[in-house]
């Protein structure tokens, strides 16, 4: 009896292992097929001119310069707006705010906000920034909208990172007569910075891929100029790709594939940077 159930348990163990393996292979397989498809179509299209050219009616002459410039300026403004607010809010909620029912309520809501579909943020941005604040379909309106989108992510990441700071370090600081601010700025924040940075980079790489909220607030599909200030109109790489894929000509599909490769590489780089930062930091502060 005993040996029977043991054999059975071993069998279950094996079966489960292979089921898990097959699902992993399936998921990775789909990804690989997609990547091969994209790369085989687009890689030949990537050259210096592709980065340097303005969008055009002619697929071969089209480039991603305005989309790339628009995306980078958009990210720049988004980070400038969302970073200080998100980090300070996270520090306040975790380190200063009282842990009462209201705090719990706010915490749950912030986590929920991180899961709200991005198009909802687009509608909010359209009403608030484009219409009420009369910013129009400008870079700054887009940046404000994306800031709302990534704020919850930054706040949650900041809180998590600060929560991970051992109380023994706070006690050590208070023990020599440090104030709350001295403790927070000299001990807690530097210790948590690695986690906060990781969260920020992940938030930015989320913002990079966003198309829906920007389309809602009226980001243009065709922009023949580089934005020169926050009030200028703009387009971004995902929107450019979206535009190209909706064209009937095969040459534009090639452009789209090439654009996707560029976008993938940027996202990949950012995620890699996030992992590198985290590992480097944790090595430094490990006990």
């Amino acid at each position, binding site marked *: 009896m005993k040996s029977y159930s043991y054999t059975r348990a071993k069998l279950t163990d094996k079966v489960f292992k292979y089921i898990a393996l097959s699902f992993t292979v399936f998921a990775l397989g789909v990804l690989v097929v997609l990547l091969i498809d994209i790369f085989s179509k687009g890689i030949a299209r990537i050259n210096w001119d592709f980065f340097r050219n303005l969008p055009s009616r002619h697929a071969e002459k089209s480039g991603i310069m305005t989309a790339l410039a628009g995306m980078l300026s958009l990210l720049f403004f988004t980070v400038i707006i969302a970073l200080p607010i998100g980090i300070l809010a996270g520090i306040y909620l975790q380190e200063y705010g009282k842990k009462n029912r209201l705090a719990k309520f706010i915490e749950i809501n912030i986590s929920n906000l991180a899961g709200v579909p991005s198009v909802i943020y687009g509608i909010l941005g359209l009403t608030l920034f484009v219409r009420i604040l009369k910013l129009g379909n400008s870079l700054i309106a887009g940046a404000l909208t994306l800031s709302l989108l990534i704020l919850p992510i930054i706040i949650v990441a900041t809180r998590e990172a600060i929560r991970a700071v051992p109380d*023994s*370090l*706070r*006690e050590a*600081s*208070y*023990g*020599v*007569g440090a104030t709350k601010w001295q403790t927070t700025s000299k001990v807690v924040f530097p210790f948590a910075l690695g986690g906060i940075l990781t969260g920020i980079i992940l938030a930015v790489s989320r913002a990079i891929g966003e198309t829906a909220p920007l389309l809602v607030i009226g980001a243009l599909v065709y922009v023949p100029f580089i934005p020169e200030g926050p009030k200028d109109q703009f387009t971004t790489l995902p929107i450019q790709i979206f535009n190209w894929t909706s064209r009937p000509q095969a040459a534009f599909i090639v452009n789209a594939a090439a654009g996707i490769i560029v976008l993938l590489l940027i996202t990949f780089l950012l995620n890699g940077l996030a992992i590198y930062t985290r590992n480097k930091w944790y090595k430094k*502060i490990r006990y």
Partner: protein
Amino acid sequence: MFKLEARHANLWYGEKQALKDISIGIEPNTVTAFIGPSGCGKSTLLRCFNRMNDLIENTKIKGEFLMDDTDIYDMDVYELRKRVGMVFQKPNPFPKSIFDNVAYGLRIIGEKNRNAIKDKVELSLKNAALWDEVNGILNKPALSLSGGQQQRLCIARTLAIEPTVVLMDEPASSLDPISTSKIEDLIYKLKQKFTIVIVTHNMQQAARVSNKTAFFYLGELIEFDNTEKMFTDPQNQRTQNYVTGRFG
């Protein structure tokens, strides 16, 4: 005159009463040991003297706590903690360099003069009997030191701000016997300059290092007397049972 004094101290964590009407006086330049089984309130009382319990939410404190006959609640809490230093159970150096750990308190109190900081760091490390081991590697991370060295570093960090009282909450409980004996030698030496209160689970340690010993049980101060008397001729039956290892 007492250096530290508690009068009718009562403390609650939420609903749970951790200290029950404790009155005790600590004489200057002595080592006082707080002993007793886990949860008896000895660490809690220790943390009252530098108001560390203020950091724990839902804590209610009644009674008087005095330092040099001044109510510590009439003092600025940061000023109090500079004068009443604390060493914790687990070594808790900051993830900074050895030098920056000791200099931390000095920079907190606004010391800007680099040479003054350097001199005080060296002096503190010497007072904490760590200088010979870290001289020349002051820029190395504090976390690369051994557990015993880390604890002496924490003591140096506390001494650097020149307190008059040092509270030690089981400072050797996570250390090996050799590191422990180094800490004990250190306590013996520090007694000349500081008033020391040490919480310990280790009876032999209390007997070795302290002048006076207080025995706590379930939040009450059962007996407080000269260490020698506490260990050889305790007046209370429970004290006798505890120091002879019959319970606890």
